[in-house]
């Protein structure tokens, strides 16, 4: 476990000293505040968490996570530092897990920043315990953690496929958009029985239960298997590289 923690700590530190990390953080805070909260409120709509959650699912998950993960393996490869990691007595899965943990940790920090709005709502809405559905908010955060775990794992996998960070970014973006919108877009344009498969396997469809306030086992398992599957492939990829 010390290996996973060591690798994760180095990557997280690298994100904090890199401009990319700060740009992602700044962009996210700006957009979630502006589009998620300030503009709806100024426009006279009711203050809710919906806008903030919409920014997270439509922007943080598919676009910013690839920015967070694009360096993960791609940079280690182009700089050659991967050679230091893989010739140390560290198992391949520990390297993959460490890389994922760093990206996921950064995502969790961004997510945690949005808790400020929950606090604001709780403080300023009169009779908030009746109006504010804290259970629903908690369920949504749970879903966001699961979906974020899967998305960061997929981003790390994409980064392991290339040594070019730009390629890594677009690869992760494409995969994430495909998975997230498989149900709504592909499911809409395909004929039965394919559409049923897409609708069932689409990320946004599986996320729906969380945003309706339910934490279901089925949908939790869906995101967990995506995460574990992507990390498993990353581990296999690291070993396959030895034999190519």
């Amino acid at each position, binding site marked *: 476990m*010390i*290996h996973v923690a*060591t*690798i994760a*700590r*180095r990557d997280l*530190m*690298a994100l904090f*000293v*890199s401009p990319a990390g700060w740009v992602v953080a700044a962009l996210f805070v700006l957009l979630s505040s502006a589009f998620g909260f300030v503009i709806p409120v100024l426009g006279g709509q009711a203050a809710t968490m919906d806008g903030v959650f919409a920014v997270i699912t439509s922007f943080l998950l598919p676009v910013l996570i690839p920015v967070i993960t694009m360096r993960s393996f791609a940079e280690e490869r182009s*700089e*050659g*530092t*991967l*050679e*230091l*990691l*893989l*010739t*140390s*007595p*560290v*198992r391949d899965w520990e390297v993959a897990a460490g890389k994922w943990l760093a990206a996921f940790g950064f995502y969790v920090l961004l997510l945690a920043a949005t808790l400020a709005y929950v606090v604001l709502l709780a403080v300023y809405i009169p009779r908030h315990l009746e109006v504010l559905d804290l259970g629903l908010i908690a369920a949504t955060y749970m879903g966001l953690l699961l979906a974020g775990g899967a998305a960061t794992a997929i981003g790390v996998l994409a980064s392991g496929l290339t040594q070019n960070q730009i390629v890594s970014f677009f690869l992760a973006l494409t995969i994430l958009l495909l998975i997230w919108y498989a149900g709504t877009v592909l499911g809409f344009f395909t004929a039965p029985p394919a559409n049923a498969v897409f609708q069932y396997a689409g990320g946004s469809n599986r996320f729906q239960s969380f945003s309706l306030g339910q934490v279901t086992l089925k949908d939790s398992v869906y995101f967990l298997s995506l995460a574990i599957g992507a990390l498993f492939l990353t581990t296999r990829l690291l070993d396959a590289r*030895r*034999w*190519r």
Partner: protein
Amino acid sequence: MVGSHREPGPLRFDRLERQGALPTIPLALIEVQGLTRYYADRPAIQDLTFSVPRGQVLGFLGPNGAGKSTTMRILTGYLGPSSGTASVAGFDLVAHSLEARRRIGYLPETTPLYKEMRVASFLGMMCRLRGVAPAKRRARVDESIEVCGLADRRHEVIGRLSRGLRQRVGLAQAIVHDPEVLILDEPTAGLDPAQTRETRELIKALGREHTIVLSSHILPEVSATCERVLIINNGRLVADDTPANLARTVAGAQGGEIEMVVEGDQGEIERRLGALPGVETVTVDAAGEGGWRVIVKASKADMRDELARAVVEAGFGLRELSARTLSLEDVFMHLTTEEPA
């Protein structure tokens, strides 16, 4: 040329061992058997077999692209072999990779480092990755910093260090977990002469306590630091010996050149020396100080004694006589240049 003919020398334990006179004790720390690695269908190395005893400093010499880095990457577990085996301290690099890797310190060719980290915290991280016990980490970091002369740089950001200092950080990370074996891929590539000398001194010092395999395409480096040289060309082992023995072997196979200054009649000198068995050509090129400068090319190794006798017997004055020794460079050229059949 593999296992090139050595002159019968003093008794060697490995020979006795082969004859069954001694019980077989695994003396070698690194053992490589029939190692072959393909990239797609192109062979990078083919059927390499060698072993390195504990405490030896071994130079791995060959032109660029000969397969040096590939071999080192297999020895460190970064690449897997297509066939054959490699082991360190008895641990196979594939079957018991982690155990083998624990015993290896590796400096890759490009000296990759985490540039945003500070020297001491980078070395601390490497300690944790390589399984140094928590109680020993501080001492190990301090020692590797001390040995590599980085004491006044320990809190500097690696990315701001000069090329030479980064090389020292690279060496420091290779020794930070106190491995038995050091594998250094072109440790002085890209350094200026002063830094090169510094690094060589450092490697020599490290060689007193470690078994080292270093690669180079620079010959003086290998003859300056290594007890034994493996020459590899086109992925195959072409020589395995001490630098001095190699020079002698090739001189024996190739013949040698002897330079003399002889006093006497020019034509007579040419005729008398040319008549000696083993002499191929005699060139009297110019009148030097005290006589003619004569260059004798011989097909036999070291003909100094015969030549001296011939000169004296003919009544000439012998002023100077010296064999032109082959440098490792000549050996290298001889072994790695394809000769027309």
